């Protein structure tokens, strides 16, 4: 059972916590020892947020050290860059195509990096880098809020050792009842789009 370190990042209010909660619980159901670390408090809405999730046989630290992330799971494009030093060489990067301009970008003081620049930075460390049209697929599934679950679907392709039923079951338990179908559809759409690429 190979240990896997996930770093879930995004902007407060985007649903990074739901994604990391699902990811942690899926690990438990799949039989891993699991640890998860994040920081709550201060007004996180609109701030940069991250959550460390680790699967393994006997996980020690809940926090992942620099350069030891296997999968960088990013719900917002710019945020992906903030964590480049965390990724190990050859690690996988999944980037949701979701843009939330920081205040200094809205006010015109800073520029938002373009896709080529983001991909360029990561090309120095890994070839496994994918933009996923999370927002578009989530809307197609029935709710833009499900963009985080689209990215989980994409992730499930990388973590192919976990049966699909576990993912769907945990998602069903973690989202409001009336949104279960929307989220399960969002998951499938995310899974399909990455599978097609291969």
């Amino acid at each position, binding site marked *: 059972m190979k240990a896997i370190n996930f770093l879930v990042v995004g902007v*407060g209010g985007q649903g990074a916590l739901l994604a990391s909660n699902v990811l942690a619980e899926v690990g438990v159901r799949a039989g891993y020892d699991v640890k998860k670390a*994040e920081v709550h408090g201060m007004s*996180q809405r609109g701030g940069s947020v991250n959550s460390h999730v680790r699967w393994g046989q006997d996980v*020690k630290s809940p926090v992942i050290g620099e350069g030891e992330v296997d999968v960088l799971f990013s719900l917002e494009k*710019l945020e992906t860059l903030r964590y*480049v030093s965390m990724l190990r060489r050859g690690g996988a990067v999944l980037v949701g195509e979701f843009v939330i301009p920081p205040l200094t970008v809205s*006010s015109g003081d800073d520029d938002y990096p373009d896709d080529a620049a983001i991909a360029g930075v990561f090309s120095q460390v890994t070839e496994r880098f994918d933009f996923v049209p999370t927002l578009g697929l989530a809307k197609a599934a029935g709710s833009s809020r499900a963009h985080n679950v689209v990215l989980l679907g994409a992730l499930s392709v990388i973590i192919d050792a976990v049966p699909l039923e576990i993912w769907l079951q945990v998602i069903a338990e973690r989202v409001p009842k009336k949104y279960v179908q929307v989220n399960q559809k969002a998951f499938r759409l995310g899974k399909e789009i990455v599978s097609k690429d291969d």
Partner: protein
Amino acid sequence: MKILYSGNEAIARGAYESGVLLASAYPGTPSTEILESMVQYSQITSEWAPNEKVALDVAIGGAYAGVRSMAVMKHVGLNVAADAFFYAAMTGSEGGLVIVSADDPAMHSSQNEQDNRRYAKFGRVPCLEPSDSQEAKDMVGAAFEISERFDTPVLLRITTRIAHSHTLVELGQRPAEVDQREPQNYHIDRTKYVMVPGNARKRHPVIEARVEQLARFGQDFGYNLVEMQDTSLGIVTHGIAYQYAKEVFPQASFLRLGMTYPLPPKLISNFAAKVDRLIVIEELDAFIEEEIRLMGISVEGKSIFPAVGELDPGVVRKCSVQAGLLADSSTRPSPKLDKVSPLPMRPPLLCPGCPHRGVFTITNKLKLVVNGDIGCYTLGFLPPLSALHTCGCMGASIGVAHGVSKAGIQQKNVAVIGDSTFFHTGMPALLNVAYNQSDTVTIILDNRTTAMTGHQENPATGRTLAGDPTWAVDFEALSHSLGIEHVYAVDAYDLEEVETALREALDVAGPAVVIAKRACALLPETRKTWIALDVDSDRCNGCGLCFRVGCPAIVRSDETDAKTGRFLAEIDPLLCTGCEICAQVCARGAIFTREQMVEKQEQAA
């Protein structure tokens, strides 16, 4: 079956399984979720207190009355509760007394990163430190046993990475007999519990002897773990640092201290004698290291690892490589960020619709010196508002403002404090303002909740922690009772009202209070009233006044004004709550009001 629990949930569960009957706390990151989780166990009386000192006094009362009791706080809360902590250390108690201190290395959400193990030594109180959620739960039980066996309060110290990390926990049961017992006869022992000098002098030798007994007990304490492997390196560690060290040094020998005060001398000297090189890996202060050195044992620690900020496996590895404890095995290049550097920051902000924004807009307009306090409104110090000029600790604003007034400055100066913080430690300071009569104007930001820590009830919300209805304090009546004659209550969303009241309060002779009322925009009942506003692009000329209120919902559009060439404003309909503060600062009436938006919608329909 094991389930994922945060350290905070685990401590609440531990209290339940240990038969705790009373718990009191003041919310504070990273400790808040302990009581929020505790309240699910109906057998435990769980309460929010107005501050940590009251919380600890309440828990001490419970323990004096013979039941297992708990007080919970963040690290700086123990400063507030220190007076109670020290007398409880002197008296001991009839039932077990456990104090949880949640320290915040790296200051994720705090004004300092003080190491509260120092309090344990200062007060002669044993200190337990868990390394994961399972231990956090189980050590609550151990702490109560120690408390009752040695007649002492016990400090259960966790850090942010224990509090907010989720690890697997095996649950136990609550002893049924706890909830079936009848009220006990209150045991009177005046020489033990009345800390007048004559009694206190008799107690001091007792607590010094208790430290000796606890150090001997630590020799065989089950949570002081010795793991002998390769003896070329021996690591003494504690808490979350143990996990980091185990990951970086899987082959080394370990002494993991579950009790970090007092330390067991024999256990340490035996371990030291078996290893070639002895190091301490501990977060923050050189607490263990100093104690070991006092035993005459040579040891390294802070010469290798930082005393500032958090550790993590990366930091431990890097420092160990530098100190020659590990070979450099890193093969990874540092990616260059030159094309995208510096990355735009994303600091925490006042939320869209935050009622504090309007008050700061006015204090800026009036060019006031603003003495701030601890809460969401502290974020008002950030640009573009830059509206807060001092902030030190809970309740400091009013005392500092009074001092500034008495010292005398050219500008006008005010105190700005939230509702919950006012109850915490602001009230005695306002009493001082009234008593010693300064021109201090105190602005109470009454947003009907304790917002910063995630919407906890407080004495003004009319609800208890358990959600039961209770009496709600009236700020106007309270201010008058404390001796403030001039009291103004205003709607924080109405800029004109805020400005008029504030000008008048600044003009009247003597102290005044302005209560700026408006519920937090994120409260569930407020969310129901959200209406997104819109910019009238025919009227907007890109002057940028609305950007200066610092609302994340107002963004620069791609359109420019034909005359000025400046970018027009745009409102993000997903973020805007319709507070209308931007509409009120706009000189051209270029932002549609709520009423206009409703009309537009009706017309469209």
